[in-house]
């Protein structure tokens, strides 16, 4: 059976207790530490934490299809870009006119647009990608990601490859988006909501089907499942969530460029998922944290900071089955 990772939802409560405690500790730390440091007068770590939380949402959404669904998408960053442009383009037109239909600073509108456009893109490309398997699937998802990348590179109006400055952030009633703390808690709350949402999905009837289809699609079909439609639905959900993360990312950086969505960015998301571990919904958050930390540390020493990442990824895949969270889960088991 081609069961690559250690997706092991069986008796989760029994086995994952160490990992669950670790998750709670991480989430509490995320709520407290960056805020405390910020209150102490240092804005840098809140900045890093915001990026961490936003990328975590993207990575958790990727894990829904990659870890639980076995769909190794190499184009997931496209949705980050789509989401960000769904903030940038309407605010651009709100400022410079034209396209009155979408010209607005309304954050609700931006988010809805980001989610819908991402879902539609996922539906169309997923319908094609999911006809293929294995390495072909990886290649074709990457190709669609690059297609979107080149689309935005060619759009002169929106800055082409120089990118687009978002002059004013989304306006959301009751939230001061220009206040870093308020914005951080919006992102943090979103992460909690997304983790819970994905957790519910993974354990639902739907979740059982996509996990079954990952383990053994032929078996699922002979049991009577039309696996294709379920996988496609999962692909669309993951894209929509990542589009939402993209809308947050656009607001965070106040700047969007096609670089946010090229294949290297997709590779970074995959790195977070695989390093963090695919067997837990929370796993990619650990991966994202490690990624950002390493990026900070290594980029201080060398411009070739991607190289150690590649080596680490290979080591993880070879030796740490199920990534860091898989390791934690096993610790939980051997401790009783």
């Amino acid at each position, binding site marked *: *059976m081609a*069961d690559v990772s*250690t*997706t*092991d*939802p*069986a*008796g989760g409560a029994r086995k994952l207790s160490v990992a669950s405690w670790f998750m709670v500790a991480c989430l509490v730390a995320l709520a407290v530490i960056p805020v405390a440091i910020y209150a102490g007068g240092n804005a840098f770590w809140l900045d890093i934490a915001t990026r961490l939380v936003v990328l975590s949402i993207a990575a958790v959404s990727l894990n829904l299809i990659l870890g639980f669904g076995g769909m190794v998408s190499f184009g997931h960053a496209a949705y980050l870009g789509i989401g960000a442009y769904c903030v940038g383009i309407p605010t651009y037109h709100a400022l410079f006119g034209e396209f009155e239909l979408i010209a607005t600073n309304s954050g609700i509108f931006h988010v809805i647009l980001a989610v819908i456009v991402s879902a539609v893109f996922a539906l169309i490309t997923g319908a094609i990608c999911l006809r293929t398997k294995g390495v072909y699937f990886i290649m074709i998802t990457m190709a669609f990601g690059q297609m979107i990348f080149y689309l935005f590179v060619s759009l002169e109006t929106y800055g082409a490859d120089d990118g687009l400055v978002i002059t004013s952030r989304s306006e959301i009633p009751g939230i001061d988006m220009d206040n870093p703390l308020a914005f951080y808690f919006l992102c943090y709350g979103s992460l909690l909501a997304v983790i819970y949402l994905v957790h*519910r*999905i993974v*354990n*639902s*009837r*739907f*979740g*059982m*089907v996509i*996990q*079954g289809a990952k*383990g*053994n699609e*032929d*078996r*699922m*079909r*002979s*049991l*009577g*499942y*039309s696996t294709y439609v*379920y996988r496609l*639905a999962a692909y669309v959900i993951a894209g929509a969530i990542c589009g939402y993360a993209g809308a947050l990312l656009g607001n965070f950086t106040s700047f969007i460029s096609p670089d946010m969505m090229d294949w290297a960015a997709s590779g970074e998301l995959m790195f977070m998922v695989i390093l963090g571990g695919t067997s837990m919904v929370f796993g990619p958050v650990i991966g994202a944290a490690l990624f950002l930390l390493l990026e900070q540390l290594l980029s201080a020493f060398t411009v070739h900071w991607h190289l150690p990442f590649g080596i680490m990824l290979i080591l993880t895949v070879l030796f740490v089955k199920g990534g860091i969270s898989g390791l934690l889960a096993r610790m939980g088991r051997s401790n009783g």
Partner: protein
Amino acid sequence: MASTLLETQELQKRFGGVTATDHVSLQVEEGECHAVIGPNGAGKTTLIAQLSGMLAPDAGTILFNGKNITQLTAQRRSHMGLARSFQITSVFMGLTVLDNVALAVQAHTGHSFHFWRPARQDQALRAPAMEMLEKVRLQDRANDLASEMSHGERRQLEIAMALATGPHLMLLDEPMAGMGPEETARMVETLKSLDGITMLLVEHDMDAVFALADRISVMVYGRLIATGSPAEVRANEEVRQAYLGEAA
């Protein structure tokens, strides 16, 4: 005679130069256990794959309950009452025994676009799944991972999964493969207890075949060379030469 549940007419399948299914016309009667025997590479698995819808035949027709199902997908056939087990054990290793069967139950309990309620607490899935496990006497292993089970137990689990889809006809591809004598005896007993379900049984273990089969078809090089009662097949000279001789 009872009515015909499954029928193939002149079924053909080639892989390059190999004719794996050579003008196979076969009838499985309602309620019988119909064994298909034949040497390695005779085309038995290929036949089952075509019957279950995993493989498209090059030519010929498959009728199930009188309906032409040749073009239907595997999932459609499953919903019509066709279930199969695999020659290579095919259970979900990362799931518990009960989860495995519950997933099979779920396939036939409406659509699965339910995103919120935990499937593992759903009695509509768990209770029937537990019932199936009792039929194959695996109820004590319900909460163990499939990966922790012995080979023989996994084969039993496969039967439970096939049963959980509520089949009229089970296509069983060597359910005793790789089993010791005790496990084989247990499987024979399990299959015997399933009266009312028609079976197409591919099996190498002759004792098991003669214990279970109402009729036997013999396949050699993709061709059916004989079909008849166990006694007839045992007495058939061509069969003895082609197959039983070397197996005995």
